[in-house]
């Protein structure tokens, strides 16, 4: 059984290098798959959609990319149970493709990561995200400890979860909110939410728990050298912090 991980390159992707690097540093057998090579995706066991502005985010963030030829294979794979991780723009694409929250048929969006509020503009801010479900609820988080707190960077213009009230109820009661925004000490309140996201949502998973769409970039705070409060004397090149999410992902791919 293949354990290979595909990091998808859409035109406009911009976080591919660090995403590939963190996956490899966490033991993953990861490679890029280019948008002209959609067929190659069939050979991979898992898919990672990195951040960026795929297809220029025309119409809405992720809207065009959700219909890219590569997504046919990703959607089919997700339905089969393959692991799919979308980060930032990748998360927006998964939402537009209806893979999360996945409360309707695949391919049909029921919620959106839309423009931040208040301010309606891009923000770049250090955050923490806290695991808000049982680790085993989502295969990708299964090896994380309960209530895991992960450092990351919110760097997006459209990161606010929005949906109709009925849908938000389904999202909440179905335990689709995998991560919420939190403070450094793990406390959760409105002040920790950088973008006005409904339910304080930083990441969504689907019903089956094989797809995770996370807005903040854990891969940008994933080595000691990235940590603003790293311990003196730590190996700056060693993965840590945000890498925990990718370790758990790679563990899930290997199991």
């Amino acid at each position, binding site marked *: 059984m293949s354990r290979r991980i595909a990091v998808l390159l859409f035109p406009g992707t911009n976080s591919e290098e660090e995403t590939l*690097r963190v996956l490899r540093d966490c033991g993953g057998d990861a490679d890029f798959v280019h948008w*002209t090579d959609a067929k190659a995706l069939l050979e991979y066991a898992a898919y990672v959609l990195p*951040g960026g502005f795929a297809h*220029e985010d025309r119409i809405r963030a992720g809207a065009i990319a959700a219909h890219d030829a590569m997504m046919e294979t990703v959607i089919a794979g997700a339905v089969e149970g393959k692991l799919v991780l979308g980060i930032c723009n990748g998360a927006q694409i998964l939402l537009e493709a209806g893979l999360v929250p996945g409360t309707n048929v695949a391919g049909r969006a029921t919620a959106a990561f839309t423009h931040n509020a208040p301010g309606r503009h*891009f923000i*770049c*801010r250090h955050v923490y995200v806290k695991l808000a479900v049982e680790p085993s609820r989502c295969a990708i988080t299964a090896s994380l400890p309960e209530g895991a707190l992960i450092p990351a960077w919110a760097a997006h213009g459209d990161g606010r979860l929005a949906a109709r009230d009925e849908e938000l109820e389904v999202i909440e009661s179905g335990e689709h909110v995998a991560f919420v925004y939190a403070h450094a*000490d793990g406390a959760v309140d409105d002040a920790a939410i950088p973008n006005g996201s409904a339910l304080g949502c930083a990441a969504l998973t689907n019903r089956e728990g094989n797809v995770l769409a996370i807005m903040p970039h854990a891969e940008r705070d994933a080595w000691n050298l990235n940590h*603003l409060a790293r*311990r003196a004397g730590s190996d700056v090149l060693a993965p840590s912090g945000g890498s925990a999410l990718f370790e758990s992902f790679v563990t899930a791919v290997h199991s």
Partner: protein
Amino acid sequence: MSSAHTKRSPQRSQTLIELGSTALGADERRRIAQGLGREPTRVELHAFDAQWSEHCSYKSSRAQLRRLPVQGERVVLGPGEDAGILSLGEHAGERYCVVVAHESHNHPSQIVPFEGAATGVGGIVRDVLCMGARVVALADALRFGDVRDPESHQRHVARAVVDGISAYGNAIGVPNIAGDVYFHEGFNENALVNVVALGIVKEREIVRSFVPPNGEGWVLLLVGKATDPSGFGGASFSSLTLDAESETANRGAVQVPDPFLKNVLMRATYRVFDALHARGIRAACKDLGAGGVMGCSAELCASGGFGARIDLDLVNTAVPGLPPDVLAVGETQERMLLALPPAVVDDVLRIYNEEFTLPQIAYNARAAVIGTVTRERRYMLTHRGETVMDVDIEFLTKAPFVTPSAASATPCHPERSERSERNRGTDASDSLALYNTCSREPLYRRYDSVVRGCTVIPRGYAEAGVIAPIPGSRLGVALAVAGNPDLSGRDPRLAAEDAVREAVDKVVSVGAEPIGLTDCLNFGNPNKEGHYAEFVAAVDGLAHAARSLNLPFVSGNVSFYNEDSAGNAIPASAIVACIGAIDDVGSITPGRAEQVDAANPLAEIYL
């Protein structure tokens, strides 16, 4: 065959000259006609207008800039090409270098702030990209007018400039790690947008901007956005519409940014350079800036000792029927020129057009062969079978020096003993709320400071930004900018010295060793004695400060004609960037006081 077939249109040139649509002076026009032995064609006139412009030729500033120190142990490439290069250190048996470029985009940003600032970022990124480097960091130094009135035009300019820098830098995925901003009423009608880009390249993979000695017969490849009428000298274009009854195009010199295309173009170019290095081929590459296809190809070939022959019909265009002068000198963004041995051209075309699908990324974007490098040192353009330009390439690319008069005149700004009330608060909290003292967070929060995952100190956490740009290596690069307009009102020389001092201090403050400087010199009208005197005084200050610190300037840019409608110059603004090297990013001081938290028991706050 050359000049006999040249389409001469002296009458038309005369019309343009009468309309005052070029910036060439009467002396320069006479010199061109003498050099050519005839009246220039319309295309030639525009070509000389661009090539002999202050922007391309530094004709009023070159003599002064020669006074700056440019040598040092770490200097791999000093001023002269699109970017300077400094030696950073070794990793895994390879010597790595930092590429740095620093430019202004002031006038476009004042007229169309969002697009002007965005294309400023786009241009500086190409300057680094074309040296064969991965683009790894950005910085911006902004000078705005008095923005206290939320309805003021200055406020609009400031907002839109920040939005433009944010939109462009974020989309291409280059972290903005350093910068500063000042507010001063002297910038009310002329804001300053200076941008710095850093790149990383292995020393043996540096790509130069001249055709190498074996380059005869090499192919000239134009890559990027389809040429359109944007970015064609405003005055020239309106006179064009007068006599060519051309309604095709938009007016003026507005440049249109396309960060989405640039994102793909950058990645495709990385792939092309990797493929060329793997085959041991050293291409030449240059960014298309002022002077468009003509300026870029002429400089690329002339600096290698060659000539060029270009068929303008092969230039991919966004609209049909563009006149040859627009094709030749229009400044459509997101374009680069490569000179390549013919044997590799098909592979390079395939990477750009098929693997990275440029034609599907933006309308008619592509890589296309447009001409060849010639042994004969002529610069020739053909259009629809006619030769529209045929000149000595040396004559074209070596603008005559201008010696502005009375360089010893007194600087134009009267001495100000009183500090502006703009910078004076009634008490401590009031002072902290002043525009020049308050937090810059609302601005830099718009900039992605951490994309690429290499950021050690992001924007806003220290006086300088720090990255560890080589994966797997502890080597770090620090970057900071400085230049205080309130000082320059009193003494432009002192202000320039202080800009060097402050930029260096900032880099030292994060634990880096300063290794090089760049300057962007923003001044008034060099033809006005007082304005020019400020420029000369500032160069004095830069030279003195850099020499005393034993630091070289490796790149720079001069922006003249920054004045308001009444002809007053902006506050003299020598803006300096300092690049620092760090052997081990584990050795530097991370974080700022606010970031110290319970997670790190070793953290203490030092006051």
